[in-house]
């Protein structure tokens, strides 16, 4: 017997977790001496209030869709890929190499090649942790953390050394040629007669992110590989008994997961900065964990959760720029932490009382029916 109806699991629990995180965030804002309701208004307005703000929200959401999908794909096979951060950094390297080395005639060609470059680089960075997990049983969480640190060191080396733009002061590569620049929402919507804000950061990668989400949905629930991944995730002995090769599945899953994380670079490196900057990932790899958790590892849920985190992120930026409220930018980090905490780690705290509630409700009804 199911303890709870599905809608409660999918909608109610994340919602309650979110409300709890919001209440505590409100208390933090109160403690800082500001008005939480006013802060909420500034945040929502800052995230959704204008085309420009909304475009930036979409931009951040695009990052989170990629990293959220990366975490979710791995999670279906029972792997906790905490290395999205490093894989996304390497994805940026892949994009930068492709865009700087090859003279492209048109952005669409550049995009096809940079998708390959980003995914391959991200997958390559997931290869060693995957191999060690599959062959040696080394804990993938620890190895991916180590690889996050190594990715930072590697990029730091490349961006102050071989890849540094000549004459530039900061650790960043040279700007990509104009033919590799992805169209922004402004460019994309102009042919349809819609004048979208020119400055907003949202770009064509959002479309790629949505396609990726759809592809993940097909992969997980409508292919043999997806079935094998889920089987492995549910029970390794059972998967082995069914003739599934865990080594092969772990390697493929982590390659897909790392590839998705790497593809985040299409958005932030190719779509936005148009050059590789040190620290371009900005923690999106870790936020992907929260996004996947909230989205219950389902692509639709992930897109929605990513939009929510996009609102949080862009809204938080506006909040920190608000002169009257004087709330620092780091509040966003705190809110994200609380959302991760409540949706991920304290899930049972919300779930147990709800389950009891549903059981007692159902018990009351069946008792009545028996009379």
């Amino acid at each position: 017997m199911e303890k709870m109806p599905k809608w409660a699991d999918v909608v109610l629990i994340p919602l309650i977790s979110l409300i709890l995180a919001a209440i505590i965030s409100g208390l933090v804002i109160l403690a800082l001496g500001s008005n939480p309701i006013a802060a909420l208004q500034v945040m929502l307005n800052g995230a959704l209030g204008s085309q420009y703000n909304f475009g930036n929200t979409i931009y951040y959401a695009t990052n989170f869709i990629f990293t959220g999908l990366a975490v979710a794909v791995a999670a279906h096979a029972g792997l906790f890929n905490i290395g999205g951060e490093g894989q996304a950094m390497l994805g940026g390297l892949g994009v930068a190499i492709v865009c700087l080395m090859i003279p492209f005639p048109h952005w669409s060609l550049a995009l096809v090649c940079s998708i390959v470059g980003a995914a391959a680089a991200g997958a390559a960075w997931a290869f060693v942790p995957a191999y060690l997990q599959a062959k040696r049983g080394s804990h993938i969480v620890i190895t991916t953390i180590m690889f996050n640190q190594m990715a930072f060191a590697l990029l730091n080396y490349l961006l102050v050394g071989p890849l540094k733009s000549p004459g530039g002061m900061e650790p960043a590569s040279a700007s990509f040629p104009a033919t590799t620049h992805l169209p922004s929402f402004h460019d994309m919507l102009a042919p349809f007669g819609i004048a979208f804000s020119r400055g907003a950061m949202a770009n064509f990668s959002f479309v790629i992110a949505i396609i990726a989400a759809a592809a993940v949905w097909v992969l997980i629930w409508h292919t043999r590989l997806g079935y094998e991944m889920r089987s492995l995730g549910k029970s390794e002995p059972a998967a082995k008994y069914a003739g599934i090769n865990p080594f092969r599945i772990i390697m493929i899953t982590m390659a897909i997961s790392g590839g998705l994380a790497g593809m985040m670079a299409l958005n932030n490196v190719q779509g936005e900065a148009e050059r590789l900057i040190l620290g371009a990932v900005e923690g999106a790899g870790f936020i992907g964990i929260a996004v996947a958790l909230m989205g219950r590892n389902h692509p639709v849920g992930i897109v929605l959760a990513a939009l929510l985190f996009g609102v949080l992120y862009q809204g938080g930026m506006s909040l920190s720029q608000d002169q009257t409220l004087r709330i620092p930018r780091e509040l966003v980090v705190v809110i994200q932490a609380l959302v991760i905490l409540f949706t991920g780690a304290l899930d049972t705290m919300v779930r147990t009382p709800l389950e009891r509630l549903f059981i007692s409700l159902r018990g009351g009804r069946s008792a009545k029916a028996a009379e």
Partner: protein
Amino acid sequence: MTYMDIILILESMIRISTPLLLACLAGLYSERAGIFDISLEGKMLMSACISASFAYFTGNVWLGLGAGIIATLLLSGIHGLAAITFRGNQLISGVALNFLASGMTVMLANAWFGQGGRTPQLSGEMRFPRLTLPFADQISEIAYFGPFYARVLSNHSILTYIAFLAVPFTWWLLYRTRFGLRMRAVGENPAAVDTAGISVVKLRYAAVAICAVLCALAGAQLATAVPAAGFVKDMTANRGYIALAALIFAKWRPWHAMWAVLLFGILQAAAIRYQAIEIFGTRIPGQFMDALPYILTVIILAGFVGKAIGPRAGGVPYVKER
């Protein structure tokens, strides 16, 4: 390289190793009791901020440290609540706490001091001074041993001595006391401990609390021990992850933890002193030295230098009914 160069490198090795050693031992207690803790970084950061702030407010570094301990105990309490009471995912809880600390510290420092997330310069009683061991001045003239005694062994903050004394103490506690036996057992086979009528929950909370106190010491060392002069945004700079790496390197054993930390310490000390190191005519970039602890850990994890197997019940919430 002269003898004095070696002395200087060893001196900074000890200084660099101190917070790493404290954090590594913190992780050791927690993980030996079966609770994975990737939030060592966040706890250190929180303590660095709170201890520096309260040292500044009260003018007394010990009161600052006390406040730092309380703050890390609160963070550990959240981790315990998630990992022990509600049997949540310990890794996710750790990720969340790292985020929480990195945001909260800057916000608090900003709200209190308005200096963009740093504390004002600490001075005098607000800092842990360098301690001079007995006769350091008299002995320092003796060739070879003198400078070693005066610079490497002497001349560190009290927290350094606490950190290195904590190593034999931890060994004794883990392997020679009933509490230690039970704590190790709770990380290997909690069901057996439970059957013996000992509370798994209490033991795990105790381990998490010890972990918090040690992290607090590590953070205080970073922010309030001479030559440090206050808290700066994200000042732990991934030391929590290096401590985690050292813990794996040490295979969760106290003495080995010390050697692992000293190894990482001397690598960093050398990297700081010699920005580019040449080995056999090849120039090694400083970033490679930064990444070396992580690379070594992965090699260890791969089992090439001996297999590192953590406590068996590590990361697994204990469910009584099972």
